[in-house]
């Protein structure tokens, strides 16, 4: 599915320092019954954002007006562990976020994000702590994520760190391409390979 190109993003950020946030929290299984991809923002962090009667939990960062409209989420270590449900990445995107920053990501969640146009930015634990401290000190703190230069910068202090992304995925994100575009272009090569498989 096509997504908007990603180049340089400057935004405030939601802080969620809890570690090991699993995809069952990002979107609980009972909200995976759709057969189309739409409106996954509604149940994004459902049980952390809302009480069982549907009223919002005012203390949860994603509900705080002060952060509203942020396009970045700064998450705790091992963000996105657990289930392979791409719905978790969809709900991040549908909520209006284009970038998740953490000191560590679970593999499948990270892959899913890259495939749908959400940029996972892995930073050092100390830089993640700096981001949290800055956001908690001033919720209007802006973070600049520069994909062409592979840097993430805390604008208030100018502190910056580079992040890793392979050049293939980087090119995809910059241009809004996905893997199927690539794979369909080499389908003859794949067909020849398939002939060689014993089973």
């Amino acid at each position, binding site marked *: 599915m096509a997504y908007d190109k990603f180049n340089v993003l400057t935004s405030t950020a939601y802080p969620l320092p809890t570690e090991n946030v699993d995809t069952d929290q990002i979107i609980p*299984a009972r909200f995976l019954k*759709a057969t189309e991809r739409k409106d996954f923002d509604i149940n994004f962090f459902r049980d952390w954002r809302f009480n069982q009667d549907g009223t919002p939990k005012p203390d949860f960062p994603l509900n705080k007006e002060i952060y509203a409209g942020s396009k970045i989420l700064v998450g705790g270590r091992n963000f996105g*562990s657990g289930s*392979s449900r791409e719905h978790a990445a969809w709900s991040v995107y549908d909520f209006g976020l284009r970038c998740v920053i953490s000191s560590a990501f679970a593999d499948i969640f990270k892959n899913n994000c890259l495939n749908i146009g959400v940029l996972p930015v892995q930073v050092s634990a100390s830089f993640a702590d700096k981001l949290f401290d800055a956001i908690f000190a001033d919720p209007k703190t802006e973070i600049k994520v520069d994909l062409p230069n592979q840097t993430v910068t805390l604008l208030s202090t100018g502190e910056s760190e580079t992040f890793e992304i392979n050049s*293939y995925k980087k090119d995809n994100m910059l241009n809004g391409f996905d893997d*199927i575009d690539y*794979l369909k272009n080499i389908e003859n090569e*794949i067909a020849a390979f398939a002939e060689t498989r*014993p089973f």
Partner: protein
Amino acid sequence: MAKTLFDKVWDSHVVRSIEDGPDVFFIDRHFIHEVTSPVAFLGLESRGNSVVYPERTFATADHNTPTINQHLPVADPLSANQLNALERNAAKYGISHWGLGDKNNGIVHVVGPENGITLPGATIVCGDSHTSTHGAFGAIAFGIGTSEVEMVLSTQCIMQPKPKKMRINVNGKLGAGVTPKDVALYIIAQQTTSGATGYFVEYAGDVFEDMTMEGRMTVCNLSIEMGARGGMIAPDAKTFDYIKGRSQTPKGEDWNKAMKYWETLYTEEGAEFDAEFNYNASDIEPMITYGTNPGMGIGVTKSIPNAASVEGGVETYKKSLGYMSFNEGEAMIGKQIDFVFLGSCTNGRIEDFRAFCSIVEGRKKAEHVTAWLVPGSHKVVDQIKAEGLDKIIANAGFELREPGCSACLAMNDDKIPAGKLSVSTSNRNFEGRQGPGSRTLLASPLVAAASAVEGVVTDPRTLLQTA
């Protein structure tokens, strides 16, 4: 250079490598189910693509199916819609489909091996993180997202950077009452829930060599719970005996040819791993989790650790114990439980039901405990009946339900109510995993059985000794 088992299988499936990018990785077998496939088919159609190798994809309904009255129409319209979409898409593209009620239906990671679809040396993916189960046969198997499901349907490939390699050796002999589930929970507790992120694991050593295929599946299944992409075990005589003669395994000359290849699937002497760990079987006792990720596990006789003694942040740890309503230093033994869940792709196979029955035979379920016993497939149900386990189960006051994922992820009606405590043989104890507000203790079928009859968390060894 000496190659690992993982290298051999991975490298033989690389169509091409992209410089500073992923490998184009060929997929031999693709499983789909009703929850993570509908959007992939929509994507495929919106691009005007088709399914290139329908014979390499296999559909089964499992995640969102009822476990009672499967002969009746599915009551929840959203669930029924997903099941219909799977059936429709399978029919449209000529994909084999084992829908609700089909004699081959069951949990995808149970029916794949049962029907001989899972083979050594194969690459296997599914839009489900527990696809790692199939690594028990020496396959490379892992979970993928829906975008990748679409890739496999429309090209039979995905794009993956080759993971790093880890070997975990467990040597020695397991004590009485210590099962493959305990071995896995022990390893995950050592590694933590993220310790193997970025790695593909090979399990080696006496303990895995001695293990049955069902046990190996339980271990490989849980690889994802320490962050690993997957886990695998070199195929041996047990593997070949298990798969021989199953409906979809190669036959005759094809079998002989395949065997020649399969016998080459082992890690060569001197092959290098990026990380290696050694554990002793004698250090492992029946395990139980006390927190909200599978890495938070301890021996059942132990007490809940203090925040200061565990890895990771204190606040996250306290949040987790707060959710469970547990305190640091408390014993797990003796905690009153409300529910027991036996089933899932982790522990829903015949051996798990045999283990459960070995404890409950001649005993009675505690009155206040609600127990859901959910076989992994119809074939498991048939075997339960053939072995007379159904009678033991009934005499002890339990009931069998119909196959499916059930309360493991509680997408259907099998939800543990808020605040209730369940001993579950499934794979995740995340907040609300088994229903909003539910509290899960992961354990083996033996611990589940012992706790079901005593009504409190119980060390199964105390019941084995008096049996």
